[in-house]
């Protein structure tokens, strides 16, 4: 077998050293009732070419080449070719967590750059090396707030991505961390600050707000933070569309930022792998979950990087760790790092402005459900979202996300997204389908 680099004679030599007569001998000490006494019911090993064919066949049963207006937490953006060039290098692809700093300075340096760029984008002071994704970063941020404040209640806006809130509920259920949701303003589509204020109390550890929110509306983080802070709670700002950070005022008033970098050259890949982040203020550094890379020196005095503050982590602190996370999303974070390097200061701005322009072109003349300012997504009213989507599918266009499942009160609404990849002609077709 091509993945097993041994000849039969080598196996025999090695078995002899082990004092075993056969490979099966090596397992003779296993209790008989724990052993499998038949072959696995998995077809014989296949050649590379058959494997490629199989996945192509499956891919042919998926949509290909459909222009799409789906967003809702997963965005279509151009992917610079350099991204795969870099992450395909075996030195990045086939290494592991940089425990041994002396032979992992490549990975460590890129993570340090990643942490820095996440701080620059979010206006935070420290950022970790990545979380599984945006959705799981949210409960981790909430737990962090609980540790910091010593309080236990969480207030989450209903405009936070519905799946993120579901994940928050799952994580929270056994931690004695009650979650309360607050509403949105039915006019603007932004958080209902009055409802938030009403629900705030001295027991609240964190207020969680997303911007741009699930409806695409840019939130007033300053105002939400002011309310939270008034009650001694932390403000957790969530983002799902990282490209917006190229244009929007960073959430400097937030205490913790939890977000998803999928927009930064990470393919949609049917839902993952993506890369989540948590960023915060310097003073909360010891409560941050996940890995952190720090700058130091080697014994010759050269700048060097290493994993640091690992006493926060499970392999040292065990049940008292800030999180159980171990393997994170390093290679995906590297994709985002390369993306940020390629686009850079001017590029990210231009990219964000193109998104703004595209979405506003698409929205123009449509019946928008909400009046608040929006970035590259917006909610549009239509009697039968599914029917509109069917019409578009007939033209080989994938429409927007009908909102009825997540928001029963918005069952006559659809969330549409337009990015730099959407062409004007297709947008015109979408408009005419309503």
């Amino acid at each position, binding site marked *: 077998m091509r993945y097993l680099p041994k000849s039969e004679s080598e196996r025999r030599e090695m078995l002899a050293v082990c004092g075993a007569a056969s490979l099966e001998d090596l397992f003779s000490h296993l209790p008989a009732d724990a052993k499998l006494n038949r072959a696995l019911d998995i077809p014989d090993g296949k050649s590379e070419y058959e494997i490629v064919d199989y996945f192509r066949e499956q891919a042919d049963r998926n949509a290909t080449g459909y222009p799409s207006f789906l967003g809702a937490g997963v965005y279509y953006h151009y992917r610079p070719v350099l991204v795969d060039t870099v992450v395909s290098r075996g030195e990045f692809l086939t290494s592991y967590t940089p425990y041994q700093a002396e032979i992992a300075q490549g990975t460590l340096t890129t993570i340090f750059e990643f942490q820095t760029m996440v701080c620059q984008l979010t206006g935070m002071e420290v950022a970790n090396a990545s979380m599984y994704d945006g959705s799981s970063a949210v409960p981790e941020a909430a737990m962090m707030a609980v540790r910091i404040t010593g309080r236990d209640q969480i207030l989450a806006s209903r405009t936070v991505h519905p799946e993120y809130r579901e994940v928050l509920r799952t994580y929270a259920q056994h931690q004695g961390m009650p979650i309360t949701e607050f509403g949105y303003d039915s006019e603007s589509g932004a958080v209902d600050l009055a409802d938030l204020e009403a629900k705030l109390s001295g027991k609240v550890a964190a207020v969680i707000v997303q911007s741009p929110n699930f409806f695409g509306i840019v939130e007033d983080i300053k105002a939400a933070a002011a309310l939270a802070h008034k009650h001694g709670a932390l403000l957790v700002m969530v983002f799902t569309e990282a490209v917006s950070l190229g244009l929007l005022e960073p959430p400097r008033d937030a205490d913790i930022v939890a977000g998803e970098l999928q927009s930064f050259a990470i393919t949609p890949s049917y839902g993952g792998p993506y890369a989540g982040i948590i960023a915060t203020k310097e003073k909360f550094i010891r409560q941050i979950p996940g890995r952190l890379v720090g700058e130091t020196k080697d014994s010759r005095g050269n700048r060097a990087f290493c994993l*640091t503050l690992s006493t926060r982590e499970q392999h040292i602190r065990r049940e008292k760790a800030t999180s159980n996370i171990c393997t994170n999303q390093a290679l995906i974070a590297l994709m985002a790092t390369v993306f940020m390097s390629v686009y850079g200061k001017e590029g990210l701005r231009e990219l964000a402005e193109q998104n703004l322009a595209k979405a506003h072109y698409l929205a123009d003349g449509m019946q928008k459900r909400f009046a608040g300012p929006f970035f590259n997504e917006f909610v549009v009213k239509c009697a039968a979202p599914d029917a509109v989507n069917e019409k578009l599918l007939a033209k080989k266009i994938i429409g927007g996300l009908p909102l009825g499942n997540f928001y029963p009160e918005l069952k006559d609404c659809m969330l549409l997204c337009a990015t730099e990849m959407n062409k004007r002609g297709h947008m015109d077709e979408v408009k005419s389908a309503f």
Partner: protein
Amino acid sequence: MILKTRPHLTQNEPLLFESSSPGKKGYQLPPLDVPAVDPIAALGADQVRGEIEGFPEVSEVETIRHFTRLSTWNYAIDLGLYPLGSCTMKYNPRVNELVARTEALAWAHPYQPESLSQGAMEIMAELERCLAEITGMDAVTLQPAAGAHGEMTGIMLIRSLLEKRGDARKKILIPDSAHGTNPATAHMCGYAVQNIASNLNGLVDVASLERAMDETVAGLMITNPNTLGVFEENIVEITKIVHAKGGLVYMDGANMNALVGIARPGDFGVDVMHLNLHKTFSTPHGGGGPGSGAVAVKKHLEPFLPYPRMQRAGDQWTFNYDLPDSIGKVRAFYGNFGVLVRALAYIMAHGGDGLRRATMDAVLNANYIRHMLEPYYDLPYKAPSMHECVFSDDRQAKKGVRTGDIAKRLIDYGFHPYTVSFPLIVHGAMMIEPTETEGKREIDLFVEALISIAEEVDTDPQLVLGAPYLTRTSRVDEVTAARKPIVRWRPKATASTAAD
């Protein structure tokens, strides 16, 4: 003698921020085909940021050089044996990278219509089927993003089942040899952790377990083979003890590379377990992820699995969200799909028999290393080894050389170190997992290196204490890093020269 490496020059490289210059560009966007929109008019002046201070400004060629140069500072499986115990650093087949990039898979949106996602769903369904067959379990969820995430999912499943039975109970039993994620997970799921001391053979002490197991215990988290690489010979009895008191058995499947095709947790009494697809099933570790922590369960836990579950409706796959007993979602969407594609490609390449052969070669490699090194290093537990073996630095410590020092010296010999100081029950642990994808030649060089280091420890311990010498970065001061953490670049902090 160092046979495996020679020093060669590598390029220095500043941080991206340090090589930026205003106006340098690495991107170009197609021209906008719609009218530009004034951000301030659209969003209000308060909502529009100024420039992203300090953000990189470099060209394309500088970007590729930057990352290429940095990459040369890394060790990797593609360069050689990577015997990190417990991490199963096996060869990552490149065909898996290719298929994961198939356009209609890589660019599939999780909310695209099910009718246009049948291929992706079929892939997940087939992987679930294979993993159930391999583990001997009844159902599999692919949602968890890594092993620890799978553990959390699994313990929540246990909790939900017990809650449904009327009592979530208080504690989880965990052997003291367990990985740190186990207690951390139990804690996140609202359980107290009770450690079970290992017996003299490094195994779960059945008597202690029997004593500890009562109706306040939700279950046992056991790793099998355990972190010493030893198969829990009493596993059937152990699971019976737990079950007898109404508890459930969670198995940490990080070490499944020792069992695939040979023994199935489902057959020896495990109720729920995770698999690390990035270990056993060859998906690349990528410098620390992404992974996948698929969780396999027996029938009685199936109703509690995260939603949605795939099910057949005629000749189509559909997602079922209507699962009243489900613990809920543990992450958005369906899992690390791109990782799942790779894992299935790996399983297909081996096939059933090939998987078993891989397991046997993995165990052969570990046993060979164990036999070759036993004369030179202390082997604290003598039970038969499966896929890894754990030595201690006991003999070398007498000369003042610890496992971490030997590890650093191994670097000079051209190898990534083994896992250092884990499991905790071995003082000065040296945990070696070669995996099946190492040939005899590479393993012999590794063995010779460790023997040579053992001799160095005898004759010149200082040599070992100062290692590594042949790396561009010598021993890194981790203490200072933690004392005053600098975790991001700032303009003022760069007194270092341009060519740093």
